[in-house]
């Protein structure tokens, strides 16, 4: 297949119901974002799976990696006071 035919990759996110977050469902290739939106409607929402679709150019996404966790997330582990269960309350009101 001809190299010039390679279309950009879009990541697709769908809100399945009002009140819920958009969730990543997959990806597809399209020439532009309008076309990506139409394709996404055809392939990811054939059974009313969604009320709203986001399409995002995959190349525009900046992501952290799990292996980077030590420098990226680790600080939380030594901050137990950020968690509710760190605080021990007397029995009568402990369901707070």
């Amino acid at each position, binding site marked *: 297949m001809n190299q010039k035919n390679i279309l950009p990759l879009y990541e697709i996110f769908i809100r399945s119901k009002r009140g819920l977050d958009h969730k990543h469902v997959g990806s597809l290739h399209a*020439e532009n974002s309008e076309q990506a939106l139409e394709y996404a409607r055809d392939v990811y929402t054939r059974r009313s799976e969604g009320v709203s679709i986001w399409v995002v150019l995959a190349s525009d996404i900046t992501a952290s990696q799990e*292996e980077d966790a030590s420098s990226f997330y680790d600080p939380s582990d030594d901050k137990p006071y950020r968690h509710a269960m760190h605080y021990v309350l007397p029995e009568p009101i402990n369901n707070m």
Partner: protein
Amino acid sequence: MTHFELSDAELEQRFQQRIDDEQKIEPKDWMPAAYRKNLIRQISQHAHSEVIGMQPEGNWLSRAPTLQRKMILLAKVQDEGGHGLYLYSAAETLGASREEMVDALHEGRAKYASIFNYPTLTWADIGTIGWLVDGAAIVNQISLQRTSYGPYARAMVRICKEESFHQRQGYESLIALVNGSDEQKAMAQDALNRWWWPSLMMFGPHDADSAHSGQSMKWKIKRKSNDSLRQDFVDQTVPQADFLGLHIPDEELKWNEERGHYDFGEIDWEEFARVVNGDGMCNRDRVRHHKKAQDDGAWVRDALRAYEQKKRANAEKAA
């Protein structure tokens, strides 16, 4: 910032540990080259099967007996195209390009389920494909929902949600046929006679003869062996054939009280090898047709691209 202190052996051990712990492998994780290669082979083969599988059924779209059946079949065939996309997307997360995968299909380097190399001769074949071929695919895909590679597992979940409709519409259309005229019932029986054995072949060679099985099970790419999936399929399908009043073309098929499973006859492995290796009834036709659809659609993609470039150029000029 991560791996360079770890040797390949250590990385591989961590990778296997993650799999043993039932954690998913995600696209950017370190993985052995052979795991990646094995997955790309399996997922792209699976994607090609969904797409090539549209052809034998598409063959009957214009001749469906009622408008209702036509709409159902159209929806099913459209689903299969969607399944192909979900799977190609999953394979692309491993660094395979769509173009590369399609080229491999056209050049015969990539395979697809050999069942789609059999022709659909009558309308009863369409119901039978939904019942048996989608039925067999479901048995396989349900187990693959637990495959170790995250994007593949998620694609399987999505696909399984849609497959149940495929099998049920097929079975329902066979119910209509077996309750119809003698000719219609005979047509249903004839379709079962032709599709039964190829359906069993869909699960691949015996475990002992399966080239990729051992490693795939260890990596949890596959969760159940070919033979045990095939047994599941036979066990669930025999009562369904009985209900239709159709006869499964296997004289050795018999309930085995001791095993708690049906015993069944041996597959014609020569036929299997012949069709897999390109000499089935429709192999050349299927690939030729796929290539033609690709080529015939090129002008649409070219036009879209030209329009997009023009729009961008105009926007730049205006800015």
